[in-house]
């Protein structure tokens, strides 16, 4: 699990005039782990002590000059370096007060960025793609700088990485809608160019983030449609490969983007399983895209989310367990924590997927991974895409792939969609099933939301039954099912989703209580739970005559569950009779049982329970009272059913409802009898436990007495032999 802790504001931000520009150019680390060097978009560099939220020093350039690159700290010389007006490199120490008096050097070409990393030298990246070490550049500032990039090619993003004493500068460029990744190695200098795979929509990546893991550089990039891809470049890659290599990618995460596309968003990898995304909508909150979320890429689950007030600029930095997010008028620092999920390691899902598993082969099992496991593949294999492409082509099965089914879902009729989904799910292998099931479900839900006439209950039910789906993967599914009154699907979701938010549980509950009995009785529900409920109701009906004695009251009400009547209309003179009849219809009761068994946390549930109105609460309480009575009757022998609400769950729900609506119930005249009954339950429970305590005491006494009683020292007995 990952957690986002309470954040704090580091500093205020100046509002910039244009919407897209950010107020902050960059945040870099200082020699001190608690320091942050913040460069704003115009003229100032400020050094902050993060834990105290206060500035330690600030340096500005003259009016008319502009900082064009974030200030960086030189870990070797303990100096700060910044570039102003693209060409002037300034170097100063913390003691220096005035930036104008600091060391300056003008270079011959425009600088894109200066990069610094602990343990590495400072590197200057020019806008035309050339790379120089700062020291050598400053020794001869006017040296000619070659252009590497072509005319229309512009740098979008850059970073540097130090791995195994090897220094890398990575930058991505854009040229006529195509994106490239350059990997520049220093000492010896080699440059490798990769082409990023084009996204179908032709959109540009919104953000990049690079990290070093297992001697491979992992590049993570986010597209406006919510896809987070990962590409891997080997640190000890092939040297001297000419030309542009294609860079294979794998889909790590498909974020729910809500309506439209992501505008200003950014994703940064926190560790091998977690990604922090800023500027995306929260799946359970429907409006706004200004959330900071942590996702688990192995399980495709949302681990933590936080709303950021104000406009998000699609920027996020991550240093030493803290996320720096500029939003609205402030720069917030949010500490986080990612724990390795133990389930992940138990299921073996915490793996480093080989690069061969790329987009088009999602649904097809990769023979390589099947045969050789997930051994870290040699560097030659990683970029060797021709072979894997061939392999992928030869593998494609006659049946439709996930992408094809996704296309089909966009247009195809319900029946065909159901058939294809079924086929896909039944043949899909477990490894990739999770991802594809999530995509299919999202696609189906999306289409149903757009096209009101389209609704594929069969396909959705099949997808839910794979047990690969959870609520956070497809947050709209359950609500959609409720909307379409697909109670079977609702039941399945309630049974199989482990992570239904309390608000949705409550919405289900409200719908279930409110729905007329006639509507539900026609629906076919899961037979196991129905038979359980039938048994429960029948137990009461039989119970009347079981001892050869049936009170006259029972003879009046024959077949209570075939003609269920709301107890409000019941004969109020017979309170005992009222208790014996199920206050809701059979199928409705089955659905309510599912709600009872849904996991929840009571603090979160109680506020939502307040949404229920008084008649609903009373009806639900009556139902709870009914099954409580059934459970406590002697005639009811617990049949072994896989899922049935436990006594504890029933009592907990009674308590929750009373907590949420106590004043209302006290005032309502209808609830008077109910409350006094419930009070008698409590009394009987208290009595039961005190009796059990007594029995326990006596049994313990017996236990103590036993040895002395059994072994008497001497006796004379008579035996008979034959």
């Amino acid at each position, binding site marked *: 699990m990952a957690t986002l802790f309470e954040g704090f504001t580091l500093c205020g931000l100046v509002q910039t005039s244009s919407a897209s520009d950010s107020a902050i150019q960059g945040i870099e680390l200082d020699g001190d782990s608690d320091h942050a060097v913040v460069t704003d978009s115009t003229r100032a560099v400020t050094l902050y002590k993060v834990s105290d939220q206060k500035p330690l020093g600030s340096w500005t350039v003259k009016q008319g000059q502009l900082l064009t690159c974030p200030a960086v700290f030189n870990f070797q010389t303990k100096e700060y370096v910044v570039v102003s007006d693209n060409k002037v490199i300034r170097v100063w120490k913390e003691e220096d007060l005035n930036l104008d008096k600091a060391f300056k050097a003008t270079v011959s070409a425009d600088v894109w960025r200066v990069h610094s990393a602990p343990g590495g030298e400072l590197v200057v990246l020019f806008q035309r793609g050339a790379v120089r070490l700062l020291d050598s550049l400053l020794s001869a500032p006017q040296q000619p700088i070659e252009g590497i990039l072509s005319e229309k090619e512009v740098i979008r993003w850059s970073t540097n990485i130090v791995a195994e004493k090897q220094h890398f500068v990575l930058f991505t460029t854009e040229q006529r809608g195509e994106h490239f990744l350059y990997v520049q190695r220093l000492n010896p200098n080699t440059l490798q160019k990769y082409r990023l795979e084009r996204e179908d929509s032709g959109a540009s990546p919104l953000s990049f983030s690079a990290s070093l893991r297992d001697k491979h550089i992992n590049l993570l990039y986010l597209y406006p449609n919510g896809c987070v891809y990962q590409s891997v470049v080997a640190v000890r890659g092939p040297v001297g490969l000419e030309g542009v290599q294609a860079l294979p990618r794998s889909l790590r995460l498909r974020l729910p983007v809500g309506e439209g596309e992501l505008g200003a968003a950014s994703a940064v990898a926190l560790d091998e399983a977690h990604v922090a995304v800023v500027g995306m909508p929260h799946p359970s909150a429907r409006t706004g895209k200004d959330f900071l979320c942590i996702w688990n890429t192995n399980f495709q689950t949302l681990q933590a989310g936080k709303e950021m007030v104000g406009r998000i600029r699609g920027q996020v930095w991550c240093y030493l367990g803290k996320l720096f997010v500029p939003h609205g008028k402030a720069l917030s620092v949010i500490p986080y924590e990612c724990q390795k999920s133990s389930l992940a390691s138990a299921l073996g899902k915490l793996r480093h997927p080989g690069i061969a598993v790329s987009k088009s082969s999602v649904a097809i099992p990769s023979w390589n991974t099947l045969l050789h496991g997930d051994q870290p593949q040699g560097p030659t294999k990683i970029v060797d895409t021709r072979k894997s492409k061939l392999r992928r082509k030869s593998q494609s099965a006659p049946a439709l792939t996930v992408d094809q089914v996704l296309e089909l879902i966009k247009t195809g009729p319900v029946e065909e969609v159901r058939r294809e989904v079924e086929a896909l799910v039944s043949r899909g292998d477990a490894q990739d099933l999770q991802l594809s099931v999530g995509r299919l479900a999202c696609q189906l839900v999306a289409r149903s939301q757009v096209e009101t006439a389209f609704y594929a209950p069969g396909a959705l039910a099949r997808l839910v039954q794979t047990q690969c789906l959870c609520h956070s993967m497809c947050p709209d599914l359950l609500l959609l099912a409720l909307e379409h009154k697909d109670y079977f699907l609702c039941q399945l979701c309630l049974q199989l989703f482990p992570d239904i938010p309390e608000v949705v549980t409550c919405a289900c509950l409200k719908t279930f209580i409110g729905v007329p009995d006639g509507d539900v009785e026609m629906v076919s529900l899961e037979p196991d739970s129905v038979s359980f409920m039938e048994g429960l109701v029948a137990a009461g009906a039989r119970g009347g005559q079981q001892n050869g004695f049936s009170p006259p009251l029972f003879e009046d009400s024959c077949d209570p569950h075939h003609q269920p009547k709301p107890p409000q209309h019941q004969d109020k003179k017979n309170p005992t009779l009222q208790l014996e009849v199920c206050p809701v219809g059979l199928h409705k009761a089955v659905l309510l049982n599912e709600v009872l068994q849904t996991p929840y946390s009571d603090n979160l549930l109680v506020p939502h329970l307040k949404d229920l109105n008084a008649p609903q609460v009373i009806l639900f309480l009556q139902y709870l009272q009914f099954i409580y009575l059934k459970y406590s009757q002697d005639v009811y022998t617990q049949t072994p059913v896989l899922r049935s609400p436990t006594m504890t769950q029933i009592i907990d729900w009674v308590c929750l409802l009373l907590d949420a609506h106590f004043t209302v119930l006290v005032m309502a005249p209808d609830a008077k009898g109910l409350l006094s009954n419930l009070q008698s339950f409590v009394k009987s429970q208290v009595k039961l436990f005190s009796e059990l305590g007594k029995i326990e005491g006596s049994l313990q006494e017996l236990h103590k007495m036993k040895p002395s009683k059994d*072994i*008497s*020292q*001497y*006796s*004379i*007995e*008579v*035996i*008979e*032999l*034959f």
Partner: protein
Amino acid sequence: MGEFKVHRVRFFDYMPTAIRAMAFNAHTERLALARMDGSVEIFNFTDHYFQEKVIPGKDSRSIESLCWVGGRLFSAGLNGEIAEYDLENLRPKYSLEAYGGPIWTIISNTQGTQLAIGCEDGTVKLFEVLEEHIQFERNLDRQKGRIISLSWHPSGTHIAAGMMDMIRVFDVPTGHAVQRLLVDRGFGGSKSRETVVWSVAFLSDHTVVSGDSAGKVQVWDGHTGTLVKTHLVTKWDVLALSVSKDESSVVAGTSEGTVIQFQFIAPTLHQQQDKEWVRTRTFKNHTHDVRALAEIETAIVSGGMDTHLVVRPLLEKFDEKSHASGLRKIHFPHVIANNINLSCAKKAGLLLFQFPGQLELWRLGDSDEHGKPGDRLPLKRKPEKLLLLKRKGEDHICCSALSSCGGWLAYSTVSSVRIYRLQTDNNNISITKVSKLPKALHSAHQLCFSSDSSKMFAASSQSSVLVIALTQSECKYVHTLKPKSGSRQPIHLMTTSGDGKWLAAANSDCEIHVYNLQKLKLHCIVPVYGSCPSAMGIHPTTNNMTVVHADQQLFEYSIVEKQYTDWSRKLQKQGLHNVWLDRDTPVTHVTFNSKNPNQVVLHDMHMFCIIDQMFIHPCPCHNGLIGFSGLFYNQMTLRSLSEQERPSHLHAFKICKTFQVSLLFLASLLDDQSLVVVERPLLAITSQLPAPVRQKKFAT
């Protein structure tokens, strides 16, 4: 057949002591076993694990280790002495101060020429084994810290010594330590505690196996002194190791009560050459420390704090399921049955209980009532402890006897015999020691009074029996009965006939001599049977002697006619039923029903049986014979049958297992049809043991 009144006695709170050491003599197939109280027991593994001999303990003696040299048995203990035992007279032959402080271990080389002991002061001392004695030879290089365990390399040139935190390998000819193997300490809190190497084993390929207090069994290369393999087997101590004869298997006993087997096998099928020591099986037959272990040809023998001796057969060594392939647990020394004596005089049943340190005399309770079968009768008089007699001297009591009239009481230790005169009138009891005893009577293996209490018989050395005449004023030596065979083995069973004419004595050579007491000479020798007699009795009226052997065979011998009776011959011809033969404890008593001369009463640890010679013998050959089903039903099954069915299932062996606890003693009172049963529930013994080591169980 009839109703019996049974006096169930459960106040004999005998407590066997923990097993400390074990040594198996593969040549004679005898197992020597030392208990904490210093007693040594000898089991004969060729004869149904029958306990042949017991050497009683002594207060000052503590045995840490046992060792066979040929047929000679040596022990060493924390009193710093080495002792050799006289297995014919059941006493220590001599003991020798080693002058090295407490001795932890004693071993001999394979040639049987030298003994080595490990001392508290850090020396390994070598002794030369001479014809009648042992003699100190020299010390190996003295080490710092005590020597806990030793193992001699089969070639005799090297000795491995387990110490604190290390193992030393000594070169025997020079006496120098040539290797120093450091043993790691345990983890966590036990890091600060020294590791005790409780046991080492030196194999012929110079592999050293060690078991230590950190719970490890480690395999070392003795040439290079390097650690080859560590098996962490327990959180507690590994106390004992034993190597099989072919060195393909090592067993280790732990404080958790488990015995863990390691085998020298190839870990994969493909590479049969690369063998290594692999942990294979775990046996859990003990609840407490396993202190002593022996791996013999077909079984693992283990014993420890919980006082049981367990013989666990290795099933892969057996081709088919048989009597020998069953697990055998020996809870009590068999001779414990001899520790109880009953006198039935004057209707007042007196019971004499013998403990190593004292004698207890009890009077049984009484009841006038009569009841239905299954009833428990109300007591008119409760049982009463009349006397507690503490022994004198350090030596433990080895045998005792109470005359049937209740007027005489005698006990013997290895050093002296004491006879007391008892007088009971109403509720007063007085005891007087007989002061002047004949010189010849200095020690006895067995004591026994004649039925009229006029004579006492004491089994002495070389199977001889001393006859002592008892009168009110004195006791006088009469005669020494000597066997003709010249056997040197001790007598372990003695019984007299009711008419006072015959005395039968059985010795460990399986010989039974019958003496004519009127003529004071040997009457006859019962034909020697291959298994040791475990119980015998002479019928009061017919003078037929019933003998039961360790292998469960049953004979009836007519003393007068000097031959087996017809019934016995018939029984042997038809063969005993398997259910009878497969019992795993020997019959320990034979008595007779005074009312019905056809009935013999016998019992073992788990059941008692009345054999009625008038009934048909249950034997497979009688299957379907007139009115008999051929099935060996016990009494419980018979009781559950209907009245009509029952007659067809009745047979001569009336086995009663009503008493599920360990049955130690059974005798029939002479006056009426009543039996006395002395029981000792195993639960009562386990409840008196110290708490076992704590083991993490689920959810505790």
